[in-house]
């Protein structure tokens, strides 16, 4: 390896971190090693200090850069994920390119995981040596700057997406809100009351829906889906597919006559969760935004009945021209946006999968969503809680928690909202029917503000709470003495007894699942899903809003199960992040990027298929490969793959990594034998 590192002047700083590092690693010895043994490698200053990250510690570095003319800095301290930014900042302030600093992690990777002082000190020295060798090959880098388009795409018109859209629009920037269903509103529009305050969901949601529908900066694209996303942060081109409504959106007045006249009644599997009905032409609910119906060609007699069908909707439509267009085609529109927020929500666990709970087989086993619709005054029963016969109020109701959640046979996660939802449903059932209600739970999880108080209130209302995961729901008595009609069989784990609780109605609190197509959606937007299917945020704790793809953010349940307040908070946070990007006008990106040295590229195209972000393209005229720096996310896979060594990765170059390997192994280096 050609060594052009001789002229560099390196400063090495070894942090005590109080006794965190110094208690296990002999920090003086490490500093001495750097000063003496690495003098030949360009180390001109080596110090140890109690807290390098303190203002004084940082000033120490800045002073040395200025006074000793340091050209490289190594800080042996904690993990770079904690303080890399801090020390780069210090270098920058002293006029040194920030990327000429390296950290050696001797706290998380040495002091905290080892006990033998001598061994730990030796390892710390090896790590420092590796960092010194690496930093000698660092190159000054400049952050990549990209301009940011002011428009934002929000995908999903549930409560999280609505919040994002409204916040951005209120700040005066354009938003495109794409919703797959005929109306915005999402799952929240299906609910009756919300825990723990028992606010009516519609009362707090519909004003937001209306605001989004009429906001001058928000353009709604309902009954639409994102088909293609091209470009990169600041500069995305998005193709949206508008499904045919068979109704002219800009002519229809939403008078509803067509719905009234339509003779076809079908079970509403979407908004009414399968327990209510809608027409073949319909709006999902009265307060739908936009208030424009959709015609369902799978049930409309015009399409399925042959012979032209009834055409009543067309006949009675009062608008001029007629709003009904039977041969409307799907459309594609192209949007230019700078940022994208994915708020695609969740799907309900399919309770039919748990055969022993009898959903679908036993008439009076319901899901939580069915009961939500039943409780809703605008729902199929007008707010009455009744059995499947549509009339009888239940006298005894069992509510089963954790259906499909916390169960390795189905979903291993806690859906996080079901405890509170089940408690709320217990309250509503009791309030409306006076029934005796039994909640069956594994653990009660009521950890947010006012949640446990609500649980206590419902306990006080006389709802029974039985600790045990329900084994089965059956309509078969064990013997002639048992009176059902349904039995919830469970171990009452606090009593240590197997019990069979006779009830009239069972409600299954089915859990939250990622959208069934979340993996495909993730692929469209270039972001990753966990194996479960939830979108992966950039950092589980410190950045639960951004994703690994710059300019794509997540909000609401698409990222993981959460309740309404958390969805709203995350939606607003996503808006804040987007606004900050828009306001900056341009964005500085980490300069960890791959680039092609055209002179070395043989045009073999081996790397072309490797990039998941489509950053690599082949330039036919010159027979070489090119990498778009704004699309590149810096993973380095192409760098490793290039047989000609023509691709280099800034910040993680071959030279840097090979030197670091050599440095790490200096104490055990094999003496090469003469060939």
């Amino acid at each position, binding site marked *: 390896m050609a060594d052009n590192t001789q002229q560099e002047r390196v400063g090495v700083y070894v942090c005590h971190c109080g006794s965190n590092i110094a208690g296990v690693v002999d920090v003086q010895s490490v500093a001495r090693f750097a000063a003496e043994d690495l003098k030949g490698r360009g180390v001109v200053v080596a110090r140890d200090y109690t807290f390098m990250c303190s203002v004084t510690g940082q000033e120490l570095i800045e002073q040395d850069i200025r006074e000793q003319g340091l050209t490289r800095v190594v800080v042996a301290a904690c*993990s*770079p*994920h904690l303080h890399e930014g801090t020390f780069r900042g210090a270098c920058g302030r002293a006029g040194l390119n920030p990327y000429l600093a390296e950290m050696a*992690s001797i*706290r*998380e*990777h*040495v002091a*905290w*995981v*080892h*006990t*033998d002082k001598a*061994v*730990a000190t030796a*390892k710390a020295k*090896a*790590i420092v040596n*590796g960092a010194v060798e690496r930093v000698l090959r660092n190159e000054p880098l400049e952050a990549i700057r990209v301009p940011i388009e002011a428009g934002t795409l929000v995908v999903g018109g549930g409560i999280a997406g609505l919040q994002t859209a409204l916040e951005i629009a209120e700040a005066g920037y354009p938003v495109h809100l794409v919703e797959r269903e005929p109306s915005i509103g999402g799952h929240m529009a299906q609910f009756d009351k919300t825990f723990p305050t028992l606010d009516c969901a519609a009362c707090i949601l519909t004003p937001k829906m209306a605001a989004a529908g009429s906001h001058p900066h928000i353009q709604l694209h309902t009954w639409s889906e994102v088909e293609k996303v091209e470009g990169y942060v600041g500069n995305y081109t998005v193709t949206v597919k508008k499904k045919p409504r068979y109704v002219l959106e800009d002519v229809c007045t939403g008078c509803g006559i067509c719905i009234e006249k339509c003779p076809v009644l079908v079970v509403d599997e979407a908004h009414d969760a399968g327990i209510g009905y809608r027409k073949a032409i319909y709006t999902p609910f009265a307060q739908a935004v936009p208030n424009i119906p959709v015609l369902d060609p799978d049930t409309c007699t015009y399409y399925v009945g042959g012979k032209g069908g009834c055409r009543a909707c067309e006949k009675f439509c009062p608008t001029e021209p007629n709003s009904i267009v039977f041969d409307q085609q799907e459309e594609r529109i192209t949007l230019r946006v700078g940022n994208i927020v994915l708020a695609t929500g969740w799907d309900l666990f399919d309770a039919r999968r748990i055969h022993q709970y009898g959903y679908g087989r036993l008439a009076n086993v319901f899901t939580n969503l069915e009961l939500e619709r039943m409780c809703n005054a605008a729902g199929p029963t007008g707010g009455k809680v009744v059995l499947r016969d549509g009339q009888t109020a239940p006298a005894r109701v069992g509510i089963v928690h954790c259906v499909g959640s916390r169960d390795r046979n189905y979903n291993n996660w806690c859906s996080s909202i079901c405890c509170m939802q089940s408690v709320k449903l217990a309250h509503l059932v009791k309030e409306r029917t006076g029934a005796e209600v039994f909640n069956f739970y594994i653990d009660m999880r009521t950890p947010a503000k006012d949640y446990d108080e609500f649980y206590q209130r419902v306990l006080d209302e006389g709802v029974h709470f039985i600790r045990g995961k329900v084994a089965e729901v059956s309509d078969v008595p064990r013997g002639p003495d048992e009176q059902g009609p349904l039995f919830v069989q469970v171990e009452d784990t606090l009593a240590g007894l197997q019990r069979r609780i006779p009830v009239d109605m069972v409600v299954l609190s089915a859990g939250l699942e990622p959208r069934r197509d979340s993996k495909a959606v993730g*692929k469209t937007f*270039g972001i*990753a*899903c*966990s*194996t479960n299917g939830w979108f*992966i945020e950039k950092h*589980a704790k410190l950045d639960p809003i951004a994703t*690994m793809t710059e300019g794509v953010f997540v909000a609401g349940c698409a990222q993981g199960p959460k309740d309404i307040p958390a969805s709203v908070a995350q939606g607003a946070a996503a808006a804040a992040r987007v606004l900050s990007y828009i306001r900056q006008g341009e964005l500085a990106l980490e300069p*960890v990027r791959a680039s092609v040295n055209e002179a070395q590229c043989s045009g073999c195209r*081996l*790397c072309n298929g*490797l990039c*998941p*972000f489509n950053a690599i393209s082949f330039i036919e005229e010159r027979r070489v490969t090119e990498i778009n720096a704004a699309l590149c*996310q*810096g*993973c*380095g*896979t192409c*760098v*490793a*793959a*290039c*047989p000609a060594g023509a691709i280099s*990765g800034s910040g*993680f170059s*071959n030279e840097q*990594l*090979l030197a*670091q*390997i*050599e440095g*790490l*192994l200096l104490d*055990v*280096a*094999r003496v*090469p*034998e003469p*060939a």
Partner: protein
Amino acid sequence: MSESAFEPVIIGFTCNWCSYRAADLAGTSRIKYPPNVRLIRVMCSGRIDPTFVLKALADGADGVMIAGCHPGECHYLEQNYKALRRHRLLQRTLAQFGIEPERVRLTWASAAEGARFAEEVGAMVDEVKKLGPLNWPTRPVPQSEAAAEVAP
């Protein structure tokens, strides 16, 4: 050298998003593991050039551990599968040169799996201890040639 006295040196390649953070978490959780491993951070396990592994073995390491995100959880979508493929090829190549393929271990650890990371290090150290010091071929393996066999 007796087996118990042999303390191998292992170079561990960890990715920025999962396994390096798993190592951080092992640290913050104060989970102890053998000090034989020395870590290098790369952005993604897909960045690991087979040359790096050969370089480490040639320079004195007795084993190399490559740790990435779990399959399906790569922060760069699926680049860890590329690491998986390269690892298999690399093991085969090493075997051809008479080096035990177990000396190069590929493992997954999410950012939440500090304990798993520590366990994997322990298991790797045990394994390499059993294998004994690496007897690097006297005529060094031409690194570029071996690496070429396993790219991309």
